[in-house]
């Protein structure tokens, strides 16, 4: 089980959280202007990287707040967690 670093509550066991998948996918401002391929890109295409992944977490059984985290998908080690709306931190020092 992962120890998830909630930026508001500190490290807590994974069972308190829901993972919300890839972070920083902005809903297109004007969906009507998109063609089907661009809409599919927004809805379905995911990076699923082998390495550092920026993802959303919800502390459902805790503070109830969403946040973003950087995690290495090979070691499963968290590198950083940060508030929603913040830019993705530099992960050069990531494990």
């Amino acid at each position: 089980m992962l120890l998830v670093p909630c930026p508001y509550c500190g490290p807590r066991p994974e069972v308190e959280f829901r993972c919300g998948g890839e972070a920083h996918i902005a809903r297109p401002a004007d969906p009507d202007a998109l063609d089907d391929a661009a809409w599919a890109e927004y809805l379905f295409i995911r990076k699923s990287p082998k390495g550092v992944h920026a993802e959303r977490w919800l502390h459902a059984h805790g503070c109830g707040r969403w946040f973003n985290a950087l995690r290495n998908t090979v070691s499963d080690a968290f590198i950083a967690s940060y508030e929603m709306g913040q830019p993705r931190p530099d992960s050069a020092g990531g494990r």
Partner: protein
Amino acid sequence: MRRFSISSLLSEALNAHQGWSRQWRNPEPKPAYDAIIIGGGGHGLGAAYYLAKEHGLTNIAVLEKGWIGGGNSGRNTTIIRSNYLYDESAALYEHAVKLWEGLSQDLNYNVMFSQRGVLMLAHTQHDVQSFKRHVYANRLNGIDNEWLTREEAKAFCPPLNISPDIRYPVMGAALQRRGGTARHDAVVWGYARAADALGVDILQNCEVTAITRGPDGAVTGVETTRGPIRAKKIGVSAAGHTSMVMAMAGVRMPLESFPLQALVSEPVKPCFPCVLMSNAVHAYISQSDKGELVIGAGTDQYVSYSQQGGLHITTHTLDAICELFPQFTRMKMLRNWGGIVDVTPDRSPIIGKTPVPGLYVNCGWGTGGFKATPGSAHVFAHTIARDAPHPINAPFTLDRFRTGRLIDEAAAAAVAH
């Protein structure tokens, strides 16, 4: 290839079994092939076999970064069934079951396909209605599936606890009698041996590091850890690593890779007659011919390539197993492990062409690819050889995520499968 038969077995028995030779070669890579398959699991080796056998393409190679069958082919729970709801899925998985039924004879290799029956438990009124709908839909597609009452389910699977006092009492079950299990390693080895005999090069410890493309955009070959290899057709059958391999050709995929866990118990005498699944409480269990209980757990909620998952996922499954089968509460679990499964948004696979000419992909099998191995390999080979899909895999395009013609088994089954 020396055929296995009663006479070859008898002659080797008299020869102290000293005359058996290697079942497939370990060749050096050639500079070029007519086609290459990336991924030496059951799906990839099977595709190579059908390319050679049915389409006459024998100058081909299977590239495997580790050893054949060392990925999800060696990590799954070997359940085989075809009782899917939608016509497209039913056709695909039934195609596989029909091939399973003759596979040992076809490959001259015993894959230990055992049609012991797959029982799916219903625990809620919604389960009952949904499973009956599946039964009727399957019958319309010519697939055997029948509804059993709670008592009939108990008669078919005597260890089952049908007490009304458990947390989620059993309300009935759907039974596909033609479903069952097969020996996963034997499937890989059988395909490898048969493909090798037809001239296919199986290149192990040969990791693809780049896919090269010509000025017209079409693929021209791959760079590997054993040197460059040219090919005009490349089939990607890389399961959990598909996103990475496809990125080498600049194709982004609607996939996410998650760990999926399984575990086996200590081996015991035969005590469990069928395959039993319960989607509602999340229990998947059967007994291998060695005697181990083979148990499937769920996926973790996050993208990972660690090939291990959270212990709470397996604990959740074992809680359900112990309630349904109180006799197993004192069984010791021997090993658990994880595999990396590539999951599509609609939980149906992608088998077909890609935007890159000469590049084909077979992926997105999620948590249920083993059952489809022969059918998937067969239609993938057809797609590569003809540069056009077989009618069975025609709906399973990559393009369906753009057109919106999803095959939404995720909603149909309400669980990963």
